[in-house]
């Protein structure tokens, strides 16, 4: 199993390591269902939530995960920070180190930011999203959900639909799923498909949603970011939802009990219709619950490699 000093991305992680993370998440999900939702292994460990790009849901998920492991958490967000006064990322991080954090969970809008920090400060870095590059814990919780519901990841046909070019969720899922033996079908308008995606083994690429979801075990819809609307990528919400969005009619093309997934937050009525989002095939809320368990597993495994003791 790979030694997890940091979790920067899923590329290069072995099947064994990913399996171990998912297996640990099973046990941590059990902890979250107890009366007392707390275990002591990260007692005395300080986890800083370093969110330069804002996110409430992911940050809270990590915060709950850290607290359930008995860690202490500190919040650092961009708007209330020195970064808005022109301080560089590196200086900000060095100042943070004065508080002796053991683990830094970081979200940033620049790809490579987590790697940048991991090379310069002595804490364990967990990447909570760096620009369009990676969001490893999201892909891990997606895979956890698929494995829990469908029994295995090996041989699954997983369709990921939407703005692939700008999606760190898509990229991390590509790496994780193909490592675990699943096949990935990427679909979106050509304006949102970056070049050479089919150079990744196990990946096929479509410029329409229908062929991608036909016979799929899992349909994962990505959020259309409204900020992109002004950027020549597609004409309107309305057209996008009709041509590339998931509705119950299109869902029939997938396998009968195919899972419907979404990393959240959803644009109801744009990439996914409300009835599909709320259908029995939708595991979107489970993804959120599984997110805490997966993040507990990741924090636990990274903390283990810091040589940090409970006392």
């Amino acid at each position: 199993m790979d030694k997890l000093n940091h979790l920067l991305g899923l590329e290069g992680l072995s099947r064994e390591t990913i399996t171990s993370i998912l297996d640990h998440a099973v046990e941590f999900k059990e902890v979250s269902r107890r009366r007392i939702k707390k275990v002591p292994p990260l007692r005395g460990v300080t986890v800083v939530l370093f969110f330069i790009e804002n996110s409430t849901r992911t940050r809270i998920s990590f915060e709950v995960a850290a607290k359930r492991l008995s860690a202490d958490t500190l919040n650092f967000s961009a708007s209330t920070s020195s970064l808005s006064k022109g301080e560089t990322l590196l200086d900000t991080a060095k100042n943070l180190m004065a508080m002796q954090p053991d683990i830094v969970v970081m979200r940033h809008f620049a790809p490579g930011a987590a790697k940048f920090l991991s090379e310069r400060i002595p804490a364990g870095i967990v990447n909570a999203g760096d620009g369009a590059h990676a969001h490893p814990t999201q892909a891990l919780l997606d895979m956890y959900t698929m494995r829990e519901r469908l029994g295995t990841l090996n041989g699954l046909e997983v369709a990921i639909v939407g703005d692939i070019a700008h999606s760190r969720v898509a990229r991390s899922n590509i790496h994780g799923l193909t490592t675990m033996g699943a096949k990935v079908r990427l679909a979106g308008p050509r304006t949102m498909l970056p070049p050479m995606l089919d150079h990744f083994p196990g990946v096929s690429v479509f410029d329409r949603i229908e062929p991608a979801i036909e016979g799929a075990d899992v349909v994962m819809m990505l959020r259309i970011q409204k900020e992109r609307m002004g950027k020549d990528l597609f004409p309107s919400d309305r057209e996008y939802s009709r041509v590339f969005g998931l509705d119950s009619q299109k869902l029939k093309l997938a396998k009968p009990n195919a899972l419907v997934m979404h990393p959240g937050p959803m644009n109801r009525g744009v990439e996914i219709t409300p009835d599909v989002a709320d259908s029995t095939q939708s595991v979107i809320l489970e993804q959120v619950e599984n997110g805490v368990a997966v993040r507990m597993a990741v924090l636990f495994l990274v903390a283990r490699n810091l040589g940090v003791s409970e006392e």
Partner: protein
Amino acid sequence: MKERVEKRVVMDARAVEMAVTDMAARIRAASDDDQFCIIGIQTGGIHIAQRLVKTMETVGIPRPDFGVLDITLYRDDIFMGLQQPVVRNTDIRFDLTGRNVLLVDDVLYTGRTIRAALDALVDFGRPRRIRLAVLVDRGLREYPIQADFVGRVVNTDADETVKVELTEMGFDRDRVVVYERNN
């Protein structure tokens, strides 16, 4: 994997069976209530606990509530880099409040595992009492912990390891063996 050097066999299959039967009888005598439940500690304690339950069933005692507990997350040496701690299954589906809990492990040694198990158990409720049953007590305690029911007391040194090998773990026959410590 370096082959362990076997030093002596302290219990053979017959001795194990007799010890389990004896313990089951003593436990039964001291646990005459409907709040009785058994929790086996991962991994060795689970097999012993299951054997105790089976033995009790053969004399007509109804199967009590049964749970398994993994104490990895409660260990005090979890991050000392000694080994890769693997978190195993914990499955306790009943509230422990007011219960008469029997904690079961295979070998009692320093007492640290039991200390961790006690910390874990109180997160599942407030038991009325907790008692401990072990197949083997090998002494060399580092914490003030004692077992209420012991199958066999075995004298050992710190440079030795005691292993309980049971058929349900894949061994040919049941044995309790003292080995030379590996590291």
